């Protein structure tokens, strides 16, 4: 078999007024694991899509297997075993997990009929290799976000990749999942497969990759060995600003001093659906509460239930007892809900950017937002025109629009379910800053995150913050101030050592 020798030269791509890629060069060797790093809208996802045949570049060429190669469709790229996992997920909820895994290469028997036995055995093999065999009999819409991304990764592996592009699947994964992915990458690499690894989590890049390509505003700004790079250096390259560790710390310190504000949200004896025990919590004015815990211990159920997504909900807002029957009432009571699953619960893809931003104000609160452009600029959203469809934005920018939609109506209570999933380090800290501003204006913020490090950073934004750790539907630990460290959260998440997980 010929060597991969993959190289792109002079790739450019423009979407409307937005320049996504300008004269990008990129290469990867056989068996190399290369990180592709960049902020939202830096063009890394577009580049990945060009390589995988999903987007046609305006100019530029690609050589692979010692020949000119320009995939005109994902179908053609797949024939050359260039496989990409999709940040938006390419799973079909009307097919079983096993059918999804074999979707791109459906085995047949007798030349005609789908070979279901083969599909099942392929699925069993790959799922047990990734240590998630228990997902086999589930329906796609029953899967938790991290499980979906594991299936998405498995779907790519089934296609026997020679160039595997992993587009930000780890942003939704928990630590143990990332370990599994890491081991799996190691294995395919040893079989001669090259891997392009796109992630916002810098530690993962140091852990998994050998080389790194950094992109900013559609251009490649650096190309280096991971071993020669430092975290600060990479962030500076990504953002184009020199950020030293002292700067970062100083920004955290100018947070206001702690005052005992009045309670905004109070719940007691709340039984989360799917759990036996109850919990209660009071959140005060200007407080930011991070919610941590192992996957599936009720963190997202808590915020979803508060927003009226599960069933009727009795709670006290501003000292007044109310019942929330549905999300509409929740919004009218001043609640905001930011979902990490932007495909399903965040964006209106085909609607314009400005409609996406104004939707809550226009439709439910009957308050018209006028300064759309101003809000977008404040949150550093990279866009062409507010009238463009939302899909014209990169994933991270779409999520920023979703967040600004809520924050621009100044909610009293912000409920966030892993809101920064799949957005870059800089945008993440911007989101934290937005939450901080809201808190300073007197809102209460309750935010779930699957990334413990993020909660630690969030807690540094203001002094009035704490992290609650959940286990089996109840709060088992509350951490404040200096106690909020990744180690403490990790320890508290696992109160008993269980020999068998699930």
């Amino acid at each position: 078999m010929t060597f991969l020798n993959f190289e792109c030269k002079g790739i450019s791509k423009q979407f409307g007024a937005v320049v996504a890629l300008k004269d990008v060069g990129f290469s990867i060797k056989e068996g190399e694991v290369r990180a592709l790093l960049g902020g939202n809208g830096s063009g890394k996802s577009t580049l990945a899509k060009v390589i995988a045949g999903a987007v046609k570049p305006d100019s530029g060429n690609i050589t692979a297997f010692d020949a000119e190669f320009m995939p005109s469709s994902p179908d053609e790229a797949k024939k050359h075993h260039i496989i990409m996992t999709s940040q938006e997920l390419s799973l079909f909820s009307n097919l079983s997990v096993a059918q999804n895994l074999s979707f791109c290469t459906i085995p047949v028997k007798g030349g005609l009929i789908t070979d279901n036995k083969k599909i099942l055995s392929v699925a069993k093999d790959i799922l047990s290799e990734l240590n998630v065999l228990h997902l086999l009999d589930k329906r796609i819409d029953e899967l938790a976000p991290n499980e979906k991304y594991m299936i998405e990764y498995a779907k790519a592996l089934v296609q026997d990749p020679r160039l595997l592009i992993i587009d930000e699947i780890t942003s939704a994964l928990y630590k143990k999942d990332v370990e599994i992915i890491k081991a799996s990458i190691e294995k395919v690499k040893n079989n001669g497969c090259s891997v392009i690894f796109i992630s916002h989590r810098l530690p993962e890049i140091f852990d998994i990759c050998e080389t790194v390509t950094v992109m900013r505003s559609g251009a490649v700004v650096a190309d280096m060995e991971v071993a020669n790079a430092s975290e600060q250096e990479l962030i500076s390259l990504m953002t184009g600003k020199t950020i030293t560790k002292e700067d970062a710390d100083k920004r955290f310190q100018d947070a206001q001093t702690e005052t005992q504000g009045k309670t905004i949200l109070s719940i007691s004896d709340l039984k989360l659906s799917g759990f036996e025990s109850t919990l209660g919590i009071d959140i005060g004015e200007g407080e930011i509460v991070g919610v941590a815990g192992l996957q599936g211990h009720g963190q997202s159920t808590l915020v979803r239930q508060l927003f009226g997504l599960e069933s009727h909900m009795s709670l006290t807002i501003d000292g007044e007892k109310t019942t929330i029957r549905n999300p509409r009432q929740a919004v009218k009571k001043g609640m905001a809900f930011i979902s990490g699953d932007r495909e399903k619960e965040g964006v209106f893809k085909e609607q314009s950017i400005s409609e996406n931003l104004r939707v809550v104000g226009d439709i439910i609160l009957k308050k018209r937002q006028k300064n759309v452009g101003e809000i977008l600029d404040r949150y550093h959203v990279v866009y062409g025109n507010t009238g463009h469809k939302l899909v014209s934005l990169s994933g991270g920018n779409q999520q920023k629009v979703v967040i600004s939609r809520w924050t621009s109506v100044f909610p009293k209570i912000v409920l966030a379910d892993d809101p920064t999933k799949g957005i870059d380090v800089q945008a993440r800290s911007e989101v934290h800053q937005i939450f901080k501003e809201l808190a300073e204006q007197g809102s209460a913020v309750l935010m779930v995150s699957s990334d413990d490090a993020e909660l630690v950073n969030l807690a540094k934004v203001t002094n009035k913050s704490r992290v609650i750790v959940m286990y089996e539907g109840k709060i088992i630990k509350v951490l404040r101030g200096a106690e909020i460290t990744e180690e403490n959260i990790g320890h508290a998440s696992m109160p008993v050592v269980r020999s068998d997980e699930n």
Partner: protein
Amino acid sequence: MRNSLMKIVRNTAFPIFVLLIAFIIINGAMSGFTSSFVVGFFTSNFALCCVTIGTAVIIMGGGIDVSLGAMVALINCIFTQLVEHGWNFGLAVVVSLLISMACGALNGTVVGFFRVSPMLATFGSLSIFSGLALTVLPLPGGTMPVGFRNFYMGTIAGIPIALLIIIALLLLAFLVHRSPLGTKIIAVGLDAPKSFISGVRVNSVTFFTYVFAGFVCGVGAIGLTANMGGGDPNVGTALSMSAIASCVIGGVALSGGKGNALGAVFGSLFFGLLINTVIAARTPSFQQGMIRGIILLVGMIVAAVLLRGTTSTRAKQLRNEGAND
């Protein structure tokens, strides 16, 4: 055992199956089933069943087709004229089927490759097909060989030939469903961009669904010709909407990606029985339409409630976009 039972209950065709059984019992109680009634029922509902199978495959693939009724009329007229002009009978059948597939291919090309909205594309071809039908056969007429009519209205081992052909077409649809192509059809129906990313040639899959529909409509048109003993350029006008309604009540989601042809055929048989029941109840003819509508709405509500019973939370229900998703 319990598992396979759940599988049947969860099938999108289950609610309409229950409704259909209920209506068969009601009908049996009111008028009883004679052999000639059963044969007559299937021969007169044959065309609708065929169009419904075609419509179901198109809708599952994310499209819609309002031109199939007009297509049936066109093929009905062409077939009548071919037989009138003394063509070999078998050749007339084959040519008619080829023309109906070509009609489907026209729709498939416009929708699949030119990406015109399927509603508009097929609305356009509807006018073309009915115009052509009027050109081919301006007035109802023609005669069919007696042997052909007798064969169509006959039975094998007590089972009506028309029903056997419907079953054969259903088996064909099932074969497609169980092939990789079938998986791709429902994937495209659910989410075309995702399918494209996964390497599916979306255009070709869409094209296929329309050609398939063309074929089954051709079969339906030939059966209709036998039933009427001739051609009529205005015969199929109501078929398209009835077929779409049959699909929806049979558990095929209008948004695409969910359902199966079997449920859709149950739906069309249900419609046939519904009309029968209303007539058998000696309802004044002015009110028949209204009563049919009322029964239909109640039936839909029952189907919706039956399906909802299997989903748990409210947010999920909303996501499922209505009853038949």
